[in-house]
C-alpha cells in the first residue's frame, strides 16, 4: 500500500515547490531529408518534422494529466543543419523548421547548428553567417555553434566570427531586447543528446529519433535543505542526493512512458536543476539556503560544486540512461535569485565564470552593455571555451549585448527567459588577441588513447 506521507510529499512538491518535467524533447535526424535535393530540402525538412512530431504535444499533455505532473515544454531537436546544407538556402530551412514547430505545437525547435571545433567547412560558415537573419526571421528556432572541444582544441576563427554574429543578432533584434541572442548558444564540448534549449541538437551518433527528457526542481531541493539548516555539508549532500533521486525517477518514468506512447526510442534523462524566474524555483536560493547571504559572494563556487555533484550522484541511480548536461544551471535572467544578486552587484561576470568551472553549463543568459565590441564578446567566449576544454566539460556562452543600454538597466524577455540586469565587462581591448585566429591546441590530457 502507498504511504500517506509519500503521496502528500509528491503532491506538495508539484503544487508548492514547482516540481515539473521541464521538457520532453524529440530528437530527430534530418539526414533522411537529404535525398530530396537542395531545392526541395526545406519542404522535406518540414514534412519530416510534421510527420514524426505530430503526436508529441498530445502525448505530452496526456502524460501530464495521467500523472498529475506538469510538463512545461515539448520541444524538438534536429541534426545540426550545417550537415545537410549543401547547396541549400539556410534561412529557408530555418523558416521551414519554424513553420513545422508551429504546426505541431511545440515550444522550441533546436538544431540550427554547426560543429566547428576543429575547422569551419563552407556549409558551416554559411550557416553561422546566416544565424542573425535566421533567428530574427523565425520565432521558435534555436541555434548553437560548437567552437571547441577537449579533443580538438579551440577554433579561434570560429570564436572571432561568433563575436560578430552575436553582435549582429543583438542589433537586428534590438526591438525585442536582443531576443535573437537568447536563442543562440556558443559551446565547447557540446553534448549530442541535450534536451534543453537553446543548445539542443540531435547528434549524428543518435539514430533516427530519440525521446530525451529534462527534469527540474530547484524549489524542491531548496525546500529539502530548509530541513537541515545548520548541519554539516555531509548532511546537505545526502539531502540533495535523496531529492535528486526522487526527481530523476519521475523523469525516468515520464521518459519511458513518452517513448512507449510515441513508439520512439528512449534516449536519456537529463537530470539538470533548471530554474525559472518564478519565486521558489531558483538555483541561487539553494546556494543561499546553504548559508550564503547572497549568491555570488565568496563561498558560492564551493556551494555550487557540492550541489552539482550531489545532483548527479542522486540522479544517476534513478535512471537507466543519464545524459545531456545533467547538473545545475545558472542562467542569470531565468533565476530570480540570480537576478536579485546581479542587481545588487553581488554577482559579477567574473564570479559567474568561476562558477562555470564547477557546474554543468556556462555563462548563460547574461546581458552585457550595448557598447561591448565584438572582440570582447569573442574573448568572453574564448575564456569560457578554455574552461570547458581544459576541464573536460561542457561550457557555453549565451550573452546578450543590450543595444542602447548600459549597466544599471535591464533587458526584459518575459516568460521563462525572464529579465537580465546589464552586467559590466572589463574595459580594455582584446582585439589583437582575437585577430590572431587559428587554433588553440588541445590540452595534453586530451591524449588519452
Amino acid at each position, binding site marked *: *500500500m*502507498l*504511504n*500517506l506521507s*509519500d*503521496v*502528500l*510529499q*509528491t*503532491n506538495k512538491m508539484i503544487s508548492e515547490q514547482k516540481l515539473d518535467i521541464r521538457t520532453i524533447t524529440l530528437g530527430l535526424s534530418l539526414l533522411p531529408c537529404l535525398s530530396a535535393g537542395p531545392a526541395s530540402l526545406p519542404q522535406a525538412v518540414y514534412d519530416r518534422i510534421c510527420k514524426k512530431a505530430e503526436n508529441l504535444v498530445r502525448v505530452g499533455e*496526456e502524460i501530464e*494529466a*495521467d*500523472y*498529475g*505532473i506538469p510538463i512545461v515544454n515539448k520541444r524538438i531537436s534536429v541534426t545540426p543543419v550545417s550537415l545537410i546544407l549543401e547547396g541549400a538556402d539556410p534561412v529557408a530551412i530555418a523558416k521551414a523548421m519554424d513553420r513545422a514547430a508551429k504546426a505541431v505545437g511545440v515550444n522550441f525547435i533546436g538544431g540550427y547548428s554547426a560543429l566547428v571545433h576543429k575547422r569551419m567547412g563552407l556549409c558551416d560558415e554559411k550557416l553561422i553567417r546566416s544565424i542573425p537573419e535566421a533567428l530574427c526571421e523565425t520565432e521558435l528556432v534555436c541555434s548553437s555553434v560548437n567552437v571547441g572541444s577537449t579533443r580538438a582544441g579551440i577554433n579561434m576563427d570560429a570564436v572571432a566570427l561568433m563575436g560578430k554574429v552575436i553582435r549582429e543578432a543583438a542589433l537586428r533584434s534590438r526591438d525585442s531586447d536582443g531576443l535573437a541572442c537568447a536563442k543562440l548558444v556558443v559551446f565547447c564540448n557540446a553534448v549530442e543528446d541535450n534536451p534543453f534549449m537553446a543548445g539542443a541538437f540531435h547528434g549524428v551518433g543518435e539514430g533516427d529519433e530519440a525521446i530525451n527528457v529534462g527534469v527540474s526542481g530547484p524549489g524542491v531541493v531548496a525546500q529539502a535543505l530548509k530541513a537541515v539548516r545548520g548541519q554539516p555539508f555531509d548532511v546537505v549532500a545526502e539531502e540533495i542526493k535523496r531529492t535528486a533521486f*526522487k526527481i530523476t*525517477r*519521475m523523469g*525516468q*518514468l515520464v521518459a519511458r512512458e513518452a517513448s512507449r506512447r510515441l513508439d520512439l526510442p528512449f534516449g536519456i534523462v537529463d537530470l539538470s536543476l533548471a530554474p525559472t524566474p518564478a519565486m521558489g524555483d531558483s538555483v541561487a536560493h539553494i546556494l543561499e539556503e546553504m548559508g550564503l547571504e547572497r549568491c555570488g559572494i565568496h563561498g558560492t563556487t564551493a556551494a555550487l560544486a557540492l550541489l552539482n555533484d550531489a545532483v548527479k550522484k542522486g540522479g544517476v541511480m534513478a535512471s537507466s540512461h543519464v545524459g545531456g548536461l545533467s547538473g545545475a544551471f545558472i542562467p542569470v535572467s531565468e533565476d530570480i535569485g540570480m537576478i536579485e544578486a546581479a542587481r545588487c552587484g553581488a554577482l559579477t561576470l567574473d564570479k559567474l565564470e568561476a562558477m562555470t568551472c564547477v557546474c554543468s553549463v556556462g555563462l548563460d543568459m547574461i546581458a552585457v552593455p550595448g557598447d561591448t565590441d565584438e572582440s570582447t564578446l569573442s574573448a568572453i567566449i574564448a575564456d569560457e571555451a578554455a574552461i570547458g576544454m581544459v576541464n573536460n566539460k561542457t561550457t557555453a556562452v549565451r550573452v546578450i549585448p543590450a543595444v542602447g543600454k548600459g549597466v544599471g538597466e535591464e533587458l526584459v524577455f518575459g516568460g521563462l527567459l525572464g529579465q537580465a540586469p546589464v552586467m559590466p565587462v572589463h574595459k580594455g581591448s582584446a582585439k589583437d588577441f582575437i585577430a590572431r585566429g587559428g587554433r588553440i591546441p588541445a590540452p595534453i590530457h586530451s591524449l588519452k588513447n
Partner: protein
Amino acid sequence: MKAVITVLGKDRTGIIAHVSSLLYEENVNILDISQTIMGGMFTMIMLVELSDQGSHFAQVRERLMALAESMHMEIRMQHSDIFDAMHRV
C-alpha cells in the same frame, strides 16, 4: 490500471460517501483507503482500480474535479506509478 485519489479540504460530513458513490457509479474498485485529519484538514488517499482505457480515466477524473468544486475540496487523481517511481527503489 491503478490510480491514487487524494482528497484534501475542510472536514465535513459525507466526503467519503460522495467520493465513493461516484466511484461506484463509474464501476471503479476501491483497493485501499487511508484517511486522517492533519492540522484540522481532512486528508484521504484512495488506491483504486479502473479499466485500462484512457478515456475511462479521463472521465472519472473529470467527474472528480466537478465534485471537488461543488464540495470546495481539493481532489486529484493520478496514475499510481508516479508514487512508486519516486518513493520505491
